[in-house]
């Protein structure tokens, strides 16, 4: 009986490794889970992001005189600037930890595709960002007596954070390998993440002001296009960023 040898080995590999997608996803969750577990114990990254975010809001209060009239027009801008600033803090820290203690080399030795590391880190960064946003939103609502519990706004924040973290994780892994790393990330990140910030601010503002969906849709489309393009591009080029 004639059998194709490759089908045998393929079958054997299926038994030990399950499906390729399944093992990819398990590796991604393992990396993300490692970050979340470490954060759960130390809480140093989240607490820094949170305190910083609250301080930014406090500063905006005095810088812009957030009285009732200004508030209605600038709330979206204040929120996104806060998220962006707190986000760089988290991104930088999360990559610096990997680099400083030689963890990145360990991760690179793992017999998995390099993009697994990217997606794992991006997911844990995204979770940190969501946690900060989930705390900042109600605090802002209470402090400024503005109702921010709007399903559309939450959707915009999800989409915007995904784009921000997709590029941010990639650039942070470059920035930590440079000599000037502490100052480099925001300089690299802000000019290329501008479309996300513009679209997110405009869409959030539209939703808070109760504009019609037809006026908000172009911004949402832009956010989705940006997310898709940059997740794909980061997936393709991450190999070059961590290559040794």
């Amino acid at each position, binding site marked *: 009986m004639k059998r194709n040898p490759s089908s045998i080995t393929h079958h054997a590999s299926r038994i030990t490794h399950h499906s390729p997608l399944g093992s990819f996803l398990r590796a991604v969750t393992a990396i993300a889970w490692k970050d979340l577990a470490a954060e759960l114990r130390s809480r140093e990254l989240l607490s820094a992001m949170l305190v910083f975010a609250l301080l930014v809001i406090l500063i905006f209060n005095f810088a812009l005189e957030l009285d009732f009239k200004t508030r209605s027009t600038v709330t979206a801008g204040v929120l996104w600037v806060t998220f962006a600033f707190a986000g760089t803090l988290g991104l930088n820290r999360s990559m610096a930890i990997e680099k400083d203690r030689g963890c990145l080399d360990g991760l690179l030795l793992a017999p998995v595709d390099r993009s697994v590391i990217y997606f794992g880190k991006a997911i844990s960064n995204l979770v940190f960002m969501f946690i900060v946003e989930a705390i900042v939103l109600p605090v802002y609502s209470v402090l400024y007596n503005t109702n921010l519990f709007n399903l559309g706004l939450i959707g915009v924040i999800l989409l915007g954070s995904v784009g921000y973290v997709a590029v941010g994780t990639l650039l942070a892994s470059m920035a930590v390998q*440079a*000599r*000037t790393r502490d100052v*480099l990330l925001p300089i*690299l990140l802000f*000019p*290329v993440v501008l*479309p996300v910030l*513009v679209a997110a601010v405009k869409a959030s503002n539209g939703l808070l002001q109760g504009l019609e969906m037809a006026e908000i849709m172009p911004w949402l489309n832009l956010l989705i296009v940006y997310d898709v393009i*940059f997740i794909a591009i980061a997936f393709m080029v991450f190999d070059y960023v961590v290559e040794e």
Partner: protein
Amino acid sequence: MERQPLILQILNILSAVLLAIAACLVFFYAPLELVMGNVQKIFYFHVANAWVGMLGFVAAAVAGIAYLRTHDMKWDILEMAAVEISLVFFLIAIVTGSIWAYPAWGTWWTWDPRLTTAAILEMIYLAYLLLRQGIEDPERRARFGAVYTLIGGLSVPLTFLSIRLFRTIHPALIGTASSAAQGGFDMSAPMKLTFFFSLFTFSLIFVVLLWHRIRLGRLAEKVEQLKLNVMQ
């Protein structure tokens, strides 16, 4: 150091002559624009500068992709050359644009898509230079530079689009009904000739500068190599 090749020497002189002719055309041949008068003449060099900036921007992104595919240092040198030239020419375009905008729009600067995108491009180039400065290993520097030009090359069109969703007042060259009101105008035949002549001249200058910068890049690479040899 090796001597400049003959073609490059010829091109050096040719580009200087063409630039002089272009300036003469702008000042003496091109007719005075009816509404804006003399200040309109800056348009010929302004658009040509912005065009060269765009050429450099595209060349840098293409060189970045080529580097990531081949890992050949010559692409890195081309990318660096294109970025530096583009940085300078966009700056000139922004300054000449401001000189024109003050009498035409009554303000030095507005947050129009083209202006904002040009400013963002300058920021991306500066970030690119800072990134390269912070990395010693030439091979890693080349990889990171290529990745960053690629990301910049993708995000800049989206930036343009995102700001375009606001209203624009920058004149579009191919006249729409409202462009005249924003400072647009129809070009007569002598104007067109002057315009395309400047465009050609500046494209040539771009090539010449790129060539010189690539030679400089090769030299710098050699020096870096020698330095490494001495240290070992």
